């Protein structure tokens, strides 16, 4: 047999055993890269096609498709209803926020980063502030109350983000009433944000050195009301969706991804955890007060869209556990560091002290100088690892600010999840990755 192959010189065409296929070939084969430029695809559309020869077609889904969560465009190669290959095309929301960040001082930077992943603004501010604090070397001196407020707000933010995921996921799959419910519960959380920060979104609340303001009077009652309100509603969702046969049919076994693929593609967050890898930065490399908190990392087992749905639903419950612990353990004290270099003087001091006025003015016009160096800090956002790589050249503005956006990286997993699935499932798959296009394009 081998002689025959050698004689007919077809050895190269034979399919190699799986063990010999390199990772590169495998990933190419399963469609991680659709190597066709937009111009080429357009030309292909103009050519008269021989129906017997070419049974596939290229279909553009988005960027204005309602299920693409913003302006994601997918180039799908279809054979009938089956997706063969898929290429996500992004950049429609690119506004150069990393470049903008280089011209803003460290104090102004928060207003910029908070607009990236607009569903988890607190996490964006947190990762930027933590990076600045590490460069300044004050990361160990943040007052405990500030740290606990950060945990409280971030976990409430995780709840709000996941509730919105439940809403949009329901909408994408035809459970339209779920959309209304999810938005309704999220609005309750946002109302609390508005009370604390003055804004529903894009707060600029977590700043280098602490938080911008203390919690308002009555915050404890508001949070307790939330904690009473949401569990029965989650119970309702369970009745409405989790146990419902149509819902399970739509999600189970759809958009499967293996742990090896997820790690190779650097997918993080619920996408990685759905495959059974128990990686959560809050547990694996804890920051803030997470080592002292009691919570479970929710892990799936099949890596399908249903696991990703169930993980997020249960993460809302875990976040509520953490919030409850924050309520019990919230210490008294300063809500920002008493370091004159970083923190502006209190409002009352400005009226009576010339130095305080000058100091305040200089801090908000020139900003504070950050020692030279570079640092990478990562936190667990609702979508995965949110990282900030910050380079300082010793001036008051970052020399380079790079945000490692979880949605940007997770979107790479779409072609793997969609391959061989149906077009209708493509919608379920996009939804289950929960990309935020502001985060993808930045």
């Amino acid at each position, binding site marked *: 047999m081998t002689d025959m192959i050698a004689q007919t010189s077809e050895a190269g065409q034979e399919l190699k055993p799986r063990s010999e296929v390199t990772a590169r070939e495998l990933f190419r084969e399963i469609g991680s890269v659709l190597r066709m430029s937009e111009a080429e695809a357009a030309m292909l559309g103009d050519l008269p096609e021989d129906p017997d020869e070419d049974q596939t077609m290229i279909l553009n889904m988005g960027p204005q498709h309602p299920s693409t969560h913003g302006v994601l465009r997918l180039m799908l190669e279809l054979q009938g209803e089956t997706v063969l290959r898929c290429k996500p095309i992004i950049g429609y929301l690119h506004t150069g926020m990393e470049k903008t960040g280089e011209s803003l001082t460290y104090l102004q930077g928060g207003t910029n980063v908070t607009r990236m992943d607009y569903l988890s603004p607190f996490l964006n501010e947190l990762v930027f502030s933590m990076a600045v604090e*590490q460069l300044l070397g004050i990361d160990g001196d943040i007052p405990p109350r500030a740290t606990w407020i950060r945990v409280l707000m971030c976990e409430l933010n995780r709840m709000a983000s996941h509730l919105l995921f439940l809403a949009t996921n329901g909408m994408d799959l035809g459970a339209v009433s779920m959309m209304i419910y999810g938005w309704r519960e999220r609005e309750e959380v946002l109302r609390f944000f508005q009370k604390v920060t003055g804004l529903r979104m894009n707060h600029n609340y977590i700043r280098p050195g602490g938080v911008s303001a203390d919690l308002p009077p009555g915050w404890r009652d508001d949070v307790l009301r939330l904690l009473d309100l949401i569990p029965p509603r989650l119970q309702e969702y369970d009745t409405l969706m989790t146990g419902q046969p149509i819902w399970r049919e739509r999600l189970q076994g759809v958009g499967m991804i293996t742990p090896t693929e997820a790690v190779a593609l650097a997918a993080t967050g619920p996408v990685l955890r759905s495959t059974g890898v128990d990686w959560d930065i809050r547990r694996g490399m804890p920051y803030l007060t997470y080592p002292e908190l009691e919570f479970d990392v929710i892990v799936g087992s099949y890596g399908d869209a249903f696991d990703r749905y169930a993980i997020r639903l249960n993460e809302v419950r875990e976040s509520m556990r953490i919030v409850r612990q924050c309520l019990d353990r919230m210490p008294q004290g300063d809500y920002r560091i008493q370091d004159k270099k970083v923190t502006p003087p209190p409002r009352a001091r400005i009226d009576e002290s010339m130095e305080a006025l000058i100091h305040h003015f200089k801090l908000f016009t020139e900003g504070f100088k950050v020692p030279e*160096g570079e640092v990478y800090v990562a936190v667990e956002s609702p979508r995965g690892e949110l990282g900030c790589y910050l380079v300082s050249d010793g001036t008051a503005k970052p020399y380079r600010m790079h945000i490692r956006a979880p949605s940007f990286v997770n979107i790479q997993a779409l072609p793997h999840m969609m391959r061989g699935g149906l077009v209708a499932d493509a919608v379920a798959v996009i939804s289950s990755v929960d990309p935020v296009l502001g985060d993808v394009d930045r």
Partner: protein
Amino acid sequence: MTDVDTVDDGAPPDEAAPTELHGCPITTSRGQVVVHPSREQYVDVVKALADDGYTMCVDVTAVDFITHPGRPLPDGVAPERFEVVTNLLDLAAGRRIRVRVQVPESDATVPTLFDVHPGTEAMEREVYDMFGIVFSDHPDLTRILMPEDWEGHPLRKDYDQGVIPVQFKGTGSR
């Protein structure tokens, strides 16, 4: 009672930190470990680190140091205009390591990590798009965030930041 810390047991109290890893100088930056391989060593070092447990490549980015050439680097590493920064993560041990590669302006080419970590595909495209650094052997090195026909690479320091004048309501003569 003897103080344990002051007992001289022959070994240095604080073992000198290693200065080399896989043949490349290492430094620490704010407590984080940084490896400085050359471009030739880059892929091999990332491969060796993957065998050491750093199985996930979470981030690939770059920095343009044209206006800040005097940054501290270990001996034997000459500063160049660009620096490609790769962040690796060890999921089992919960540790990170950073790889910084110097890339000269005259030949802004770096071998791709696609063979080791396929997840770098989009990140390397972003670096190419924003800095014009070419990743040789990358399967699909095209622009990712900017339009296909865009000229220039926005995150380079010599690429100016544009300003769009905004007309506010009620300004001017009325």
